[in-house]
């Protein structure tokens, strides 16, 4: 049935005058459980299915989508996509030109040991209840929260060049968090990562996170934060844990290397980028040992897949090579502008959304340090854990990133705990000031489940391979 609907969409759009058509039919299930202080605040499932049809007609793009998966409505929607493209063509400079991709036929499935939808709700609730109980036992903890979420997506991609791809993508993730309140001060602590950790994986990923082993510490640190002093306003060295390094990559490398931003097509919301085309292979973005890849081929990242939403096979390229700005994330339409073929970064957050250039897994390659040696090597500095909220200007230059917790480093030792550290600066300066990266033993692909871009906003899941790293001369606080 699904294959027939895809064919109806392709045929109708071509009959109506489309010179190119691609179709994504998606059937997706989500499940989430959110618990607070032993009470299930929300336990729900979502069944989401529909078809998105993208066409070129009269040399311009059109897109239409519907949740009504029957032949009549799919045909109507395909015809509508062509009508929309013809409306676009009343204001065009030139015909859309795509790279020379050839037909792709294939299939991909996330490697899953335990399908999370085969694990009972009882088992999931029992895990959250136990973590909840352990955190609440800690004296001073006022609120505890925990969450598990899972998704399973089946997608057909088919195009008028006879490409046909089927993909099954699974995602699993969760978080536990504790809040202590003392007077007007709250202490908030979570595990793992940046208030949660997510992967393309099955329930085995949840088991690997060992939430129960960390629950007591999370509660204790939340309480300790209520009496910790605010992080001082100083300029010093910072050592970021892997999740914070990941957010630094996300905001200051991932977004500015999206070629659609550079070409101005995201101005209406997300903005542009300081990494203009004239800087490619000429601009020193980081220290010489900083190497950052776009790599959808690795296993387990939230940006791992077999094919992007234009049917391009997953790829690996260097965005930053030996510190030099080397390449962009591209699409079939933008890559020819820099005389390239697409490197497979077009993604849509649902059948109802048009694919745009998104991060896949943007990874800082590991260095050589052990974390304990890095701390021992730091005379004055601060160690930061668990990324909070970031903020950055619309050219991706001036960033501000906060974290849940920090420890001052004095003479090579972690000392006093400090509350709500945040740091800011200029994006290329921090990477030029990166003087140490921990080795592959500390390297992890962190998941960002809520990357926003597009207008209307699309929420994408992206990954960042990262290890703890040290950055010198960083301004903390105001």
């Amino acid at each position: 049935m699904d294959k027939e609907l895809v064919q109806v969409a392709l045929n109708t759009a071509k009959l109506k005058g489309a010179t190119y058509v691609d179709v994504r039919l998606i059937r997706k299930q989500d499940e989430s459980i959110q618990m607070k202080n032993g009470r299930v605040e929300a336990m729900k499932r979502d069944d989401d299915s529909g078809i998105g049809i993208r066409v070129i007609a009269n040399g311009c793009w059109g897109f239409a989508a519907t949740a009504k998966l029957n032949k009549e409505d799919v045909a109507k929607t395909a015809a509508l996509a062509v009508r929309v493209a013809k409306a676009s063509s009343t204001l065009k400079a030139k015909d859309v030109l795509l790279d020379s991709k050839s037909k792709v036929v294939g299939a991909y499935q996330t490697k899953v040991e335990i399908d999370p939808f085969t694990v009972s709700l009882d088992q999931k609730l029992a895990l959250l209840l136990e973590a909840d109980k352990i955190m609440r036992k800690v004296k001073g903890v006022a609120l505890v929260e925990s969450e598990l979420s899972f998704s399973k997506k089946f997608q057909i991609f088919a195009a008028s060049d006879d490409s046909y791809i089927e993909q099954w993508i699974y995602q699993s993730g969760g978080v536990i968090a504790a809040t202590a309140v003392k007077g007007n001060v709250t202490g908030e602590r979570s595990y793992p990562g940046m208030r949660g950790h997510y992967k393309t994986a099955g329930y085995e990923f949840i088991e690997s996170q060992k939430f129960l082993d960390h629950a007591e510490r999370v509660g204790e640190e939340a309480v300790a934060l209520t009496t910790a002093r605010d992080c001082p306003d100083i300029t010093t060295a910072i050592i970021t844990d892997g999740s914070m390094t990941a957010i630094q990559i996300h905001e200051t490398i991932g977004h500015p290397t999206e070629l659609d931003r550079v070409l101005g097509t995201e101005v209406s919301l997300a903005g542009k980028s300081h990494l203009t085309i004239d800087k490619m292979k000429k601009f020193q973005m980081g220290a010489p040992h900083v190497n950052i890849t776009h790599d959808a081929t690795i296993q387990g990242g939230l940006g791992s897949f077999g094919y992007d939403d234009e049917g391009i096979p997953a790829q690996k390229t260097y965005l930053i090579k030996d510190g030099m700005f080397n390449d962009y994330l591209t699409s079939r339409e933008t890559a020819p502008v820099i005389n390239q073929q697409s490197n497979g970064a077009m993604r849509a957050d649902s059948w109802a959304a048009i694919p745009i250039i998104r991060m896949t897994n943007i990874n800082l390659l590991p260095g050589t340090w052990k974390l304990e040696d890095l701390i021992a090597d730091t005379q004055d500095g601060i160690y930061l854990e668990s990324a909070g909220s970031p903020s950055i200007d619309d050219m991706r230059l001036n960033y501000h990133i906060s974290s849940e917790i920090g420890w001052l480093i004095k003479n090579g030792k972690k000392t006093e705990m400090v509350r709500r550290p945040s740091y800011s600066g200029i994006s290329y300066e921090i990477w030029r000031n990166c003087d140490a990266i921990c080795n592959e033993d500390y390297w992890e692909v962190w998941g960002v489940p809520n990357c926003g871009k597009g207008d209307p906003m699309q929420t994408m899941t992206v990954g960042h391979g990262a290890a703890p790293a040290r950055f010198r001369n960083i301004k903390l606080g105001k």
Partner: protein
Amino acid sequence: MIDKKKTKDLLNNALKPTDMIEIGIMSNQRGTTRFANSVIHQNLTVENPYVWTRVIMDGPEGKKIGGVSSRDLSVNGVKTAIRKATDIASFATPDKEFVSLPKPAMVKSKGKSQKSKVPESITPEQRASAVRKITSVCKKHKLDVAGVIHTSSYSLGIANNFGINQYASGADTYTTITAMAENSSGFASAIDKKFTNIDFEKLAEIACQKAILSKNPKQVEPGAYTVLLEPDAVAEFITFLGWLEFGAKAFAEKRSIMSKSIGKKITGANITITDDCTHPKVNQFPFDFEGVPRKKVAFIDKGVAKGVVFDSFYANKLKKPNTGHALPQPSAYGPYPSTLIIKPGNTSMKDMLKTVDKGILITRFWYTRVVDPDKTLITGLTRDGTFWVEKGEIKYGIKNLRYTINIYETLKNVLAISKETVLSGEFTQTVAPALLIKDFTFTGKTQY
């Protein structure tokens, strides 16, 4: 679009006398035309219906609750959603705090529905025509332009088996325009119930004039300045009070400053903020996602903390009246104020500008995020039209700055409020005036 009769038929067919069942049905037809480099580069029409259900089963140790949503609005689709929600509820941990879904006696409606008219349907050709108007204005000024026109028509039906049965429909158009010169940009936006009410050429001219006026921007060092914030900038930071402070969940958990301040002065006496879905500029459903009519709620009245919004769960928990501010259930977010009205003043923006001896005029903020919720400390950046003002006149454009402020403390420093107000935002609709504020803190600078 799904009309009232079909929505009600679906809702009524699915309800069963046993257990508590709530069903919501939303239909939405959305068109988006994005333009950049003065051409249309994304153009789409999407039909995205949504049905959700919450089933509450009685149990000896408390209620058991499950939720399911889907895109299948057939009679069988809705019944399947209820069956699946019942399955989930059977696994749920008993909830001792949940009392009941709302009942009709609790929800006597006041005021007229603003979303019951038949929504207008805007075509891709109409959007393309509007974009041509915008680009022709920018072309005249030799400026590049980017932006978007969103048009939506939608309906919402909510029912439960206690007799709640609500339906409303509506439409709106939202546009943003960014005009760009070599080293400057200018922004204008509008949101309205009617596409034809929006003067696209006038908006484009505003964006162009800002871009022209801010050419070759100069650098201003971070520090504390007097600022004149245009309504879009005011709306951005006030919206954070909605998220952090004005809901009953943060209040019940004593996380918010409001939870410790009712009856106390928390801002200057010239600040009054309410939630009022009957305000003529806003375009919100007259009832919430549990079908309860939205009531007018005062958050801050003449500087004094007054109250927060409730849904049925938190109204029962805190034994307060339900104000009709539920999100789709089940939800962990708690009640949310989706309309924020800042009371206007009695002076014009022009006259406010004349009073500025030295200061900064800000068109809008960007990427504002919370640094410390305990202090309502937020940070973000200026964007698309930031100007140095001296002796009551705009002198030149300046490079963008990072601001970091405590919201309540900032609202103690408001020197003047404009009589003009503007509606901003889609999900959270904020009607904001311009504010003249002293000692507004900038903590960083950008390079453009």
